[in-house]
């Protein structure tokens, strides 16, 4: 006899520490982007010079948070950090390649284009997140040189100009990938509805969404029993 009872089940995807780290860094990023605009856009700073001065100071404080929080998180949870690296530096599967080939058509036609199964981190996610992390590291290093090189020591004219160029280029890179990240991660894109919960709520993903987004990973987790019933079907 065919089964008729399909309870709603959830899979835990992100730990509390991961969520706290992500959310702190995300808020810091948004604040840094806003406060950075006061240095990046002359008319903004010229129109509000006092606000610009305050924004510059906050850029330093929040910049320190942006750097310290992920470092602290990695130091306090070395196993988690190792697992994080392991998820991102994996060999590409044929499905990963297919995902990338279909990505743009899918984004512009999700009703017609169907994506292949994926592991815990999608190939596109690995590229986008990787670009953001790389940009973040370069932003942090160049930001430190611009900050300390004009206060604690004198970095020199060329070093400061190069660092400013790096800071600006990486900021642009970060904004482009960051906006796409928010669009998908916050579930603004209809097929991604429910993904905001992963980082901004309990860190869980419904079984159905997990099967849709990360099929290989979801089935493995379910087979290993890493799934909990959220709601029994009546």
């Amino acid at each position: 006899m065919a089964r008729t009872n399909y309870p709603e089940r959830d899979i835990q995807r992100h730990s509390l520490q991961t969520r706290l780290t992500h959310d702190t860094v995300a808020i810091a990023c948004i604040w840094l982007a806003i406060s950075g605009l006061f240095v990046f856009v002359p008319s903004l700073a010229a129109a509000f010079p006092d606000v610009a001065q305050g924004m510059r100071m906050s850029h330093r404080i929040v910049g320190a948070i942006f750097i310290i929080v992920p470092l602290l998180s990695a130091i306090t949870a070395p196993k988690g950090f190792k697992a994080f690296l392991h998820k991102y530096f994996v060999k590409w599967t044929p499905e990963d390649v297919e995902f990338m080939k279909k990505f743009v058509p899918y984004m512009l036609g999700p009703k017609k284009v169907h994506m292949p199964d994926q592991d815990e981190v999608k190939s596109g996610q690995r590229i986008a997140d990787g670009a953001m992390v790389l940009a973040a590291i370069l932003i942090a290093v160049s930001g430190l040189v611009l900050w300390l090189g004009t206060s604690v020591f004198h970095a020199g004219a060329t070093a400061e100009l190069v660092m400013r160029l790096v800071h600006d280029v990486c900021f642009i890179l970060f904004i482009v990938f960051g906006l796409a990240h928010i669009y998908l991660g916050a579930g603004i894109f209809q097929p991604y509805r429910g993904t905001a919960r992963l980082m901004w709520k309990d860190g869980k993903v419904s079984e159905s969404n997990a099967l849709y987004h990360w099929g290989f990973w979801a089935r493995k987790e379910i087979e290993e029993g890493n799934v909990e019933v959220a709601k029994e079907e009546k």
Partner: protein
Amino acid sequence: MSEEMAIYYDASKCTACRGCQAACKVWNELPSPIDFNAGVCTGTYQNPADLDPHTRLIITFNERERENGYGVDWAFGRRSCMHCTNAGCVNVCPSGALYHDPDGTGLVIYDKDKCIGCQYCRSGCPFDVPRHTGVGVQGAGIKIDKCTGCIDRVRNGRKPACVTTCQPNALDFGPRSEMLEKAHARVDALKEKGFADASVYGETECGGCHTIMVLKYDRSMYTHVPENANPDGLTEALGFMKPLAAVGAVGIVAGLGLSFLTGVGYKRDRLYYDEKAHDEIDVDTGEVVKHIDKEKGER
């Protein structure tokens, strides 16, 4: 005033009395350290060692032994803002605090109220001139300080404070064309006297400076007087960043907006995975939509 003006400095007439340094400080109300032995010994008469947040002008001292072994060449130089036409500091200033005198004198001036203390101007200046007050890690109260050409005096028909105090007439102020003419005539005279390396500096550097210097010796005898000085090419590259950021942001927002529109009305059925049968089931229809054949290595 619509005529381009220039500060003229003749290193061959300068006696390094440093009256100009003192006059600058007095007129612009810039304090000096008054504590006992507060000054740092530089090993020369140069004092202070370099420009600082309260010193907009210094006379530099450099010397070298003569090749014939008799005595030394002692070069006095003037280190202050060169008031460039292609001013790196103006190019990189993000807040519009630095600008050229709208009266057309060519002097590079600034509005301290608009300065946000980023110190980019210092990195943009090929002469390493701008200095900043209140430099600290917290970033509060940092403001630019550099020579303004005594714009307040100039606007009232007077010469800069440093110029008016110069006893040997090494300093002068007037229309740039006249100052250049005077400089070239002086260099010609110096060459006739045997100073073969004498030159005019500031005529073509950075698009033409509004500080014109007569150098008695070759450039290497003076501090921060680079050859073919121009703002670093990176200052121009930085100018492309804003339009690039705007194009990037607008492009991504437009692309995502289009993506959002194509996704309107998207729906999908709830899926359930039967881990024993390895079947993915459409909950609404009870239909198996995918079977994972473990024996074939599917996952």
